[in-house]
C-alpha cells in the first residue's frame, strides 16, 4: 500500500472516531446505546479510544427487555467496569408496570417492539439529546438510507423522506428542544468489517458468539433458544445442538445458527462463506417487507 494511504479498517475507524467526537462536541447530553451485542461492543471500544486518555464523556444506555441471555448481562457489567464508563438502564418491565405498553400474548410474544417506548421514555427522563447506536447500513435496506446524524422529531420519529443531506465531514446536529438525534458512527462498517475489527483490536466477546451446546428449537427457519420467555407450540421439539449467535438481542427473537466456529478466525471464515445475512436469523425483521422502516419511524433503534 502506498505511503499516506490507510487500509479500510483504519479508514472506518478514523471516520467512526470523528463522528463520536463530533457527537460529544455538538450535544449537551448524549448517551451510547449498549446492548451487549457485537456492534455496541465495538461502539464502546471506539468511544474509549476516541477520548483517551480521558474517560468516555457520556454514559452507556442499556434498554433491558428483561428477556436476556444471562451471559449478556454479565458481559455488560464487566465490560462497562473495565472501561470505567457510567451505565444507565431502562427497563421494559417498568413500561409494562406503568401501563405504557401492553405485553404481547401468545407463543410469538416478544418484547422487542416494546423497547421503542421504553427507549423514548428513558431518553425523555434523562433528557438525552443524542443516542449513539451501532446500526450499520449493510444490515437492512431501510438502514442503507439513514444518515450518520439521524434526526428524530418531538415524537422520536424518523422521517425517511425528509432527511438532512449529509456531505463530506460536515454533520449538522442542530435541534430544537424536545427533538433528538440517533447517531451511527459504524454506518459504513459491514458485518465482516466488524468481525475483522474485533479480531484486530483483540476485544473479548460474550461466549454466545462462539460455538456452544444449547437447547434450541426450530421456528420459521430460525433456531431459537429454549428459555422461560418462549412458549413452545406442540409441534415444536427442543433439541440439543452445537450453535452460536450471529447477532444478540432479545432472546425471543434472536436466532442461533448451527456452527462449530470456536474462535474469531473460525467466525470470520464462516461469515465469509455465509449465504444468509445475519438479520436472516432475526424474527423481528420477518414480520413484513418494510418491517425495519416501520419500526424506525416509530422510534426504534
Amino acid at each position, binding site marked *: 500500500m502506498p505511503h499516506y494511504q490507510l*487500509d479500510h479498517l483504519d479508514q472506518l475507524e478514523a471516520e467512526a472516531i470523528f463522528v463520536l467526537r463530533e457527537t460529544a462536541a455538538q450535544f449537551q447530553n448524549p448517551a451510547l446505546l449498549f446492548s451487549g451485542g457485537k456492534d455496541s461492543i465495538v461502539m464502546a471500544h471506539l468511544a474509549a479510544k476516541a477520548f483517551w486518555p480521558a474517560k468516555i464523556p457520556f454514559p452507556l444506555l442499556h434498554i433491558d427487555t428483561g428477556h436476556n441471555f444471562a451471559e449478556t448481562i454479565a458481559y455488560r457489567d464487566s465490560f462497562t467496569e473495565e472501561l470505567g464508563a457510567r451505565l444507565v438502564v431502562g427497563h421494559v418491565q417498568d413500561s409494562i408496570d406503568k401501563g405504557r405498553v401492553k405485553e404481547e400474548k401468545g407463543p410469538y410474544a416478544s418484547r422487542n417492539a416494546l423497547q421503542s417506548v421504553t427507549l423514548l421514555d428513558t431518553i425523555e427522563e434523562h433528557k438525552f439529546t443524542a443516542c449513539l447506536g451501532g446500526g450499520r447500513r449493510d444490515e437492512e435496506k*431501510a438502514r442503507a438510507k439513514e444518515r450518520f446524524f439521524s434526526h428524530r422529531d418531538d415524537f422520536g420519529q424518523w422521517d*425517511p423522506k425528509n432527511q438532512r*443531506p449529509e456531505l*463530506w465531514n460536515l454533520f449538522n446536529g*442542530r435541534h430544537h428542544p424536545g427533538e433528538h438525534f440517533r447517531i451511527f458512527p459504524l454506518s459504513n462498517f459491514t458485518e465482516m468489517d466488524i468481525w475483522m475489527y474485533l479480531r484486530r483490536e483483540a476485544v473479548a466477546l460474550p461466549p454466545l458468539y462462539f460455538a456452544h451446546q444449547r437447547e434450541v428449537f426450530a421456528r420459521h427457519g430460525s433456531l431459537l433458544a429454549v428459555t422461560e420467555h418462549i412458549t413452545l407450540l406442540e409441534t415444536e421439539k427442543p433439541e440439543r445442538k452445537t450453535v452460536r449467535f450471529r447477532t444478540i438481542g432479545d432472546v425471543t427473537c434472536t436466532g442461533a445458527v448451527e456452527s462449530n466456529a470456536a474462535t474469531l478466525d473460525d467466525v470470520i471464515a464462516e461469515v465469509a462463506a455465509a449465504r444468509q445475512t445475519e438479520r*436472516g436469523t432475526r424474527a423481528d425483521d420477518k414480520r413484513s417487507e418494510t418491517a425495519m422502516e416501520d419500526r424506525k419511524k416509530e422510534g426504534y433503534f
Partner: protein
Amino acid sequence: MDLLRFATAGSVDDGKSTLIGRLLYDSKSIFEDQLSAVEESSRRRGDAVVNLALLTDGLRAEREQGITIDVAYRYFATPRRKFIIADTPGHIQYTRNMVTGASTADLAIILIDARKGVIEQTKRHSFVANLLKIRHLTVAVNKMDLVDYDEGVFHRIVQDFHAFASRLDDIAEITAIPVSALNGDNVVDKSDKMPWFKGPSLLYHLETVYTGGTENHVDARFPVQWIIRPQSHEHHDFRGYAGRVAGGVFKPGDTVSVLPSGFSTTVEKIYLPGGREIAEAFAPQSVVMTLKDEIDISRGDMLVKTNNPPNKGQDVEAMVCWFSQKPMEARGKYLLRHTTKETKAIVQELRYQVDIETLHKKEGVPTLAMNDIGRVSLRTATPLFYDSYRRNRLTGSFILVDPGTHETVAAGMIV
C-alpha cells in the same frame, strides 16, 4: 485492504439499480435471504423477471412508486478491494442527492442508455461529479443488448462523451465500457458478445483503477474538534487536541500556527485513538496532538504549518447547491459550518446560476431554488481559514444551515 468509494448516477430507465444489483449479485455480495425476499416481491408485483432494482430500493415509498428517492449506500468486497457505493437517484429534482453522494466519492459511474446516447442527463451527472471534484469518470454504456452489441454505436457515444468532457475541468481519467446490466455482459466477466471490446469488465476496472484518494497530502491542516483534558492523577497535565487531519502531514517537532490567534508553537506528540504514539499524521487520520506551549485553543480553531498558511477572510466566493424547498434569500442570513467551525454568514450576491441542462451561466436571476446550482459571494461574521475546494475538499467545503428550522439548506464549494 484498499477501499474505493464511488457514486453511481442514472435514472430507473438507465438500468442503474439493475447494474448495481448485478454487481452485488455476481460478486456474491447478495445473500440468499435477500434474494428470496426480492424474488417473492417480484412475483407479487407481477414482474416477468426477478427485479434486481428491489434490492436497492428499500423505502416503502420507493417500492410503491418504483423510483429511487434517496441516496443509498451499498457495500461489497472482492479479494482485491472493498467498495462503498453511493447510489444516487438521477431524476432532475434529486440533484441534491447526487451532490451528497458525490461529496465523498473518488470515482463516478455515468450510465448511458446505448439507444439514447449522450443526453442532457448525462451532461448533468458529469457536471455534478466534476463540480464535486470527482476526477475519475467511468462511462457505462448500458443496454448494448438492445443495439445488437454494435461496436459503431458504442464508439459514437464515446466520441460524443469525450467531446463534451473536454469542457470539464481537471479530469484524471475517463474509461468507457459497453455493458448489458440485464444480462451481465462486461459487468463482472468479459462478454463473449462483444469480442471487439478490448478493455476491462466494469468490476475489473473498479478493482484496479488507481485514484490515489481525494485527500490532500501537501497543505497541513488540523481543525481542532475536541479538547481532551483527563483531569485524572495519572494524566494530570495532559492537554490534547483531538481532530481529524484535513490535509498535509504533521510530525512531532513541526512548527505550527494556531488560527485565528496566530500564536506559534511546536507539535510535541501525536497519538492515534487509544494512545499509540505515531511519527506522522496525515489525512484522513483521527488523532490527538499535544503542543509544547500552553495556548488558549478551542474547537473550531485550526493548526497549520507556519510556512504554509491557508487563505483567511470573511468574504468567500463559492459554488452552492441549494437543498431546501425554501429558496435562497437575497441578503439572507444563515449559519455556516466549515470544518469544525460554525459562524454566521450572509449572502452578499448571487452572481449567476448554472443551467444544468445546458451548462450555461444565467446572470440576473433573483434566487436559487431547490436543486439549483449557482455562484454566490458570502460574508461571514468571523474569519474562515480555507483552501479552494479544488485544492482541498475538506477545508474548501461548507454547508449552510437555516437558523430557524436548523435544516441543512445548501452545500458550498469555495472557489
